């Protein structure tokens, strides 16, 4: 039995998940296989049904509350408080730190909406919306005000308009030959 230690280690490696890890098949919440198994059951009516449903979702009966049965409700799915990923403490030793979630923790019905990268209804703003609007309004008013003020003072280079031959291209620009005036342009050299 020279290889017995090696074989024992291999066996331990195989059994390890069943010894030390909980996995999906041991969870009471997600013991489902097919789509219909994921569907929530009908709304519980009697206290016994309520207790069973609460146990199914891993909740205490006191904490178990359902959505209203208004025709578009969610059956016996629990109505959980919204705690978004952003609002959860990052320093807690979560089972799934990437999602700040514990194993077997019941999910909010809209959990996909309250991830860390999604919205956070409990967000505390650094500045109120009034202050933000005031700041934005002040900035925009300043920019637009400076623009309107500066329209009266165009920037220009110190040059006169360009001179063109043939009486400033009078005929070329569509003037009538009867009204053509003679426009002379001069260099800065003296005539003789």
């Amino acid at each position, binding site marked *: 039995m020279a290889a017995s230690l090696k074989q024992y280690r291999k066996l331990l490696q195989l059994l390890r998940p069943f010894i030390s890890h909980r996995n999906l098949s041991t969870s009471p919440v997600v013991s489902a296989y097919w789509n219909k198994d994921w569907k929530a059951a009908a709304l519980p009516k009697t206290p016994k049904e309520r207790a069973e449903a609460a146990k199914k979702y891993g909740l205490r009966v006191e904490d178990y509350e359902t959505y209203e049965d208004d025709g578009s409700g969610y059956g016996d799915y629990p109505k959980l408080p919204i705690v978004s990923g952003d609002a959860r403490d990052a320093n807690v030793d979560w089972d799934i730190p990437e999602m700040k979630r514990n194993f077997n923790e019941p999910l909010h019905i809209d959990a996909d909406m309250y991830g860390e990268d999604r919205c956070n209804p409990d967000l505390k703003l650094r500045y109120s919306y009034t202050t933000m609007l005031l700041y934005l309004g002040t900035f925009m008013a300043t920019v637009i005000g400076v623009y309107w003020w500066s329209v009266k*003072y165009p*920037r*220009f*280079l*110190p*040059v*006169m*308009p*360009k*001179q*063109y*031959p*043939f009486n400033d*291209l009078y*005929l*070329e*620009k569509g003037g009538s030959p009867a009204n053509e005036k003679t426009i*002379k*342009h*001069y*260099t*800065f*050299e*003296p*005539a*003789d």
Partner: protein
Amino acid sequence: MGNMMYAYVTNPDTVPDYNAPPTFDPLQGFPNGRKERVINVTREELDKANIDLNRRDYCVDLYYNFMKCRRIDGIFAESCQHIKHDHDKCEFDDYVLRMKEFEREKRMKERAKRLMQKSQAEALTD
């Protein structure tokens, strides 16, 4: 920036209108007159060569020569580059002349203002 300071802060009354031609007599201060600006092509030649309107400034004769050279020697011919350079130089000098006209207009306006102030002061002392 100095131009903007002059136009809007220090001397807004004597700054020339950069959108209009000069207002003073162009021959004032030139006892023998000034040389006129001329071009060495006619309107018919330009029309025949189909030269664009925005090329028909006082350098259009050089542009005309350049186009002619290109037609004869080939479109990117090295032999035409001197004529092209002449045309570029002419456009540069045209811009300098516009700057000089601005400066002349500015100084004439300042002079007119000075003369008016002087005559007003004399009228007060009389």
